[in-house]
């Protein structure tokens, strides 16, 4: 992946930067310029915010046939999570035995390596989910 393309999204990948429509209150992640519900009524009213990072697992899949960069993780879990702000995110669920994953479990985001451009390239960091245990 182009370094600049990834870098542009770092605020969202590191700190879950999102936007809330000032007209209807709907939250969007990643941020977008116009609300998909209110359209032109939302122009100039999209407010920047950060998701708090906690949510509930809505669905998941255990990956046994992984892309080359994720071979070392398999079998691993990919989850769809409804964040407490209502928006849905998809990412890897880590620090968990796939057998222990349950729909409805509480998870939180944590920063992990999500990829790299080979051994000499840039390392990419972003959010992954981990079970809330503490």
């Amino acid at each position, binding site marked *: 992946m182009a370094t600049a393309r990834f870098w542009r999204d770092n605020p969202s990948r590191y700190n879950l930067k999102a936007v809330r429509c000032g007209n209807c209150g709907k939250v969007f992640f990643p941020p977008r310029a116009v609300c998909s519900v209110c359209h032109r009524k939302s122009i100039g009213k999209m407010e920047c915010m950060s998701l708090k990072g906690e949510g509930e697992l809505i669905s998941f899949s255990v990956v046994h046939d992984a892309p080359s*960069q994720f071979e070392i993780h398999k079998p691993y879990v990919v989850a769809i999570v409804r964040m407490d702000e209502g928006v849905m995110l998809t990412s890897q669920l880590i620090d968990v035995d796939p057998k222990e994953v349950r729909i409805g479990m509480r998870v939180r985001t944590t920063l992990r*390596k999500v990829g*790299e451009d080979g*051994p000499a390239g840039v*390392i990419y*960091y972003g959010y*992954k989910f981990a079970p809330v245990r503490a």
Partner: protein
Amino acid sequence: MDVGIVSYGAYVPRYRITPQEIGRVWGSDGEMMSKGLMIYSKSVPAPDEDVITISVEAARNMMRRVPEVDPQDIGALYVGSESHPYAVKPSGTIVAEAIGCSPNMTVADYEFACKAGTAAIQTCMGLVGAGMVRYGVAIGADTSQGAPGDPLEYSASAGGAAFLIGSKDVIAVINHTCSFTTDTPDFWRREGQDYPSHGGRFTGEPAYFKHVASAAKLVLKRAGSKPSDYAHAVFHQPNGKFPQRVAKMLGFTDKQIEVGLLTPKIGNTYSGAVPLGLSAVLDVAQPGERVFVVAYGSGAGADGFDITITDNITRLRRLAAPLVSHYIEDRQVIDYATYAKFRGKIRLKGGSA
């Protein structure tokens, strides 16, 4: 002006491997190694963890305890480690972005074997004391490696802790800090080498014990204190036995070092070792207690600290982030094959993350 610790946060990866399992693979007596080093398991980072992710987790735990602190008031951030993921490109810039304190600040990565984290604390103390910054963040973290089969493999582990250094609402005043530094080549890693080398027994008397004891005596003299004045003492802990021995040499009891001695359960977290031990002490410390700290870094030097816990610790939201004991108990033991895969000891086709 009282300069000291305003908040702290720790993190330890949850995977563990035992000395018995390492010994099984290399045909060594793992049980004997375990007893000799006083290490019963060591932490292992997941394949997607490194010094940056560990530092971010520790720094976020630190900020969770002080929601009243605006990250934009942090003027400096230093990450001390001997396993920075990049040779050129600071770990600290990513940590700073992740806790929201960039861009009007200074960042640098530190390296001084196992004491780079305490060197970062001293730097932040200077900047805060001089009035150059309101808050400084000092982090010590490592994902240290020992060559396969080397005695270091039984101890080298991963973890880290972060400290918010300031002069307002400090939970722990750092009354004095003294360092003792010489050119002593007891442990090193040349540029481009995957694994460190060490001087075997040379790492003991002329290196660890001489430097730790000298820095400790400097602190006691400067503070005009004696070992019995302290409720807790934290010494660098490359294994479980060295800190016990140096504590006894100096007149500290096993009880004084008990809370801050984590190496038997998680191994030697290098730059994270003393910061994690101090975090474990701050998890339980009471107002008025004094804490004695000496970190050691090969090469070689020792940083000593005389610390007094203040009443503010009762107002700190200690439970807003996981305690060190949570990370120690939340563990999953893995076998050597999984450990070798996680630590990149197996040659793979293509990259991995």
